[in-house]
């Protein structure tokens, strides 16, 4: 028997192995992608079904026709033919999950924190990179050292302090601290170190440009990629922040989307399964849409964050 018939064409064998491996990997990846997507899909599907129908058989795999009526219940826009039970359910959901108010509050908080975080972090990173001063390296060491301190550690003191300042039920304790974001500064400083030539600062000085103007009109445009990535992450993190918002915002009018979701979750009676799902769908919808539009940037940003000098 020749070698050839025993082992086959060596090249074919190699090719076959690679195809086999690739196929297996593809199947595993497909399964994982399904695990990631199916809960979201079922969520959206179930928010288009009527509660009664879901109670009879919650195992739905295709869209129903009751999205409109669920939305009406959630908005408390029921017709005159609604029963008292339906009205009670609608009242319960619409007072806990006031969609418009929630979106507005979350948008105010996430939007303003994002602007503050990227602007002041870029400014601090610029100060640490461009200028040479005595406390530069201690300041940078401090920023790295505090980067890892979890919020939970200081939250008891934070809340008590905010009580004593009368800042409970106020957006200030949620927005202003965004100015100090050590991790973002760390990222921006590494970015500046690798792609911001200091000669430009010298050149602008010679041209008579003030220091702050140099930062605003030259450094910020040059740091756009880093700023964009960090802005996306800051926005997502603040939109999703349940812990701090739940400690500070006790007033009905000031609640944000994550707090509303937790309220809906704690309902004991007068449940409407369809509206339950609809609330969750509405809470994740904006962020998922934004994610799929910007996914390329986001994935690149995560990868950048992983590379340590």
């Amino acid at each position, binding site marked *: 028997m020749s070698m050839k018939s025993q082992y086959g064409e060596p090249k074919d064998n190699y090719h076959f192995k690679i195809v086999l491996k690739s196929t297996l990997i593809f199947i595993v990846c497909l399964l994982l*992608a399904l695990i*990631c997507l199916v809960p979201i899909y079922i969520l959206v599907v179930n928010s288009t079904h009527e509660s009664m129908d879901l109670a009879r058989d919650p195992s739905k795999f295709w869209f129903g026709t009751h999205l409109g009526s669920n939305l009406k219940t959630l908005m408390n826009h029921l017709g005159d033919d609604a029963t008292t039970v339906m009205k009670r359910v609608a009242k319960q959901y619409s007072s806990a999950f006031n969609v418009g108010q929630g979106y507005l509050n979350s948008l105010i908080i996430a939007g303003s924190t994002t602007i503050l975080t990227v602007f002041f972090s870029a400014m601090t990173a610029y100060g640490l990179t461009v200028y*040479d001063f005595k406390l530069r390296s201690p300041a940078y060491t401090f920023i790295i050292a505090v980067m890892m301190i979890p919020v*939970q550690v200081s939250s008891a003191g934070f809340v008590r302090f905010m009580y004593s300042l009368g800042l409970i039920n106020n957006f200030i304790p949620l927005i202003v601290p965004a100015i100090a974001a050590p991790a973002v500064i760390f990222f921006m400083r590494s970015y500046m170190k690798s792609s911001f030539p200091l000669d430009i600062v010298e050149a602008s000085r010679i041209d008579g440009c003030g220091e702050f103007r140099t930062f605003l009109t030259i450094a910020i445009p040059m740091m756009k990629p880093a700023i964009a990535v960090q802005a996306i992450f800051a926005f997502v993190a603040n939109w999703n922040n349940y812990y701090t918002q739940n400690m500070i915002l006790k007033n009905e009018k000031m609640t944000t989307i994550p707090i509303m*979701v937790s309220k809906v979750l704690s309902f004991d009676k007068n449940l409407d399964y369809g509206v339950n799902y609809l609330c969750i769908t509405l809470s994740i919808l904006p962020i998922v849409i934004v994610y799929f539009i910007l996914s390329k940037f986001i994935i690149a940003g995560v*990868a950048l964050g992983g590379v340590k000098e």
Partner: protein
Amino acid sequence: MASAAQRRIKSISYAKYGYMFIAPFFLVYCFFQIWPLIYTFILSFKGNQANNAAWVGFDNYSTILFGQGMAQGSAATSAEFFKALGNTFILWFGNFIPQILLSLLLAVWFTDAKVKLPGKGFFKVVMYMPNIITAASVAALYVNLFGDSKYYFVNATLMNMGMADPIHFVADPVISKIMVMFIQTWLWFGNTMIMLMSGIMGINPSLFEAADIDGANSRQVFFKITLPLLQPIMVYTLVTSMIGGLQMFDIPYLYHNGANFSKELETVAVFIYFNFNKGTVEQASYGYAGAASIIIFAITAILGSITFYMNRDKDEIAQKKQRKRAEKQYKAKMKKGGLTL
């Protein structure tokens, strides 16, 4: 002799601008982070509830750590804290191990040049997606899918397929822990995978080529090249995940039926939160919350200093060392020179 202009240029110092640029950060950080941290420390030495103004020394610590405080129910508080600490470590461990294994496997596959994988970009985008969804919504989603009765999706589907009784995915102490581990893995594996991928792509590709030419199989390549060179980023992932695990709050806190919180899922962060977030100052236990926070802070500080040590700017340190050595040599030379003269 230098002209007047030259002398003036020499005296221009830009240092003050440096301070101006970093001042906002430090002011805000001290006001909203450092002072609350110190205040938490102070609160940990003060009493609880109605007694909140009194100075009690180490009473809160002895209550939490040894159950020997002066207040009633001190042993119960201690037991609760240690249960919470145990839960935190169980939940963290149970999500970190599958998460790192899965992420590592996927990262190796995705960076393997020999594997032809269609839709790689799509897979990355989909696998990272859970990470950006509001954690509160994720908890709500899973409670609504995995509810304990036949009125919820998963149990209904299983019962349609012939299962007799619904599984208590939310109320059962063990199954609910496994569910929280699963949710945490679901949330974080995409993120870890992308971090590890960027680490693997940072490895010099000629090493892989050389191994390929030498006839190494993929297992050998993984254990002899990828894993050892990936070590720093693995340690970084481990420590950040550990610190993140100590903060685990949203999912364990919200994964329960109705209004009743599940004690079986209480983590340290939830313990702290419960103690200080109870109505007015007279009803809350800021002392216990403060003491527990400081204990967690100590653990975090140890973990954090490990990463800090690993994350140092190695080039800068080498430069500094070199500069010092040069200075020393120069000084020694001068001394010698002085002696010979």
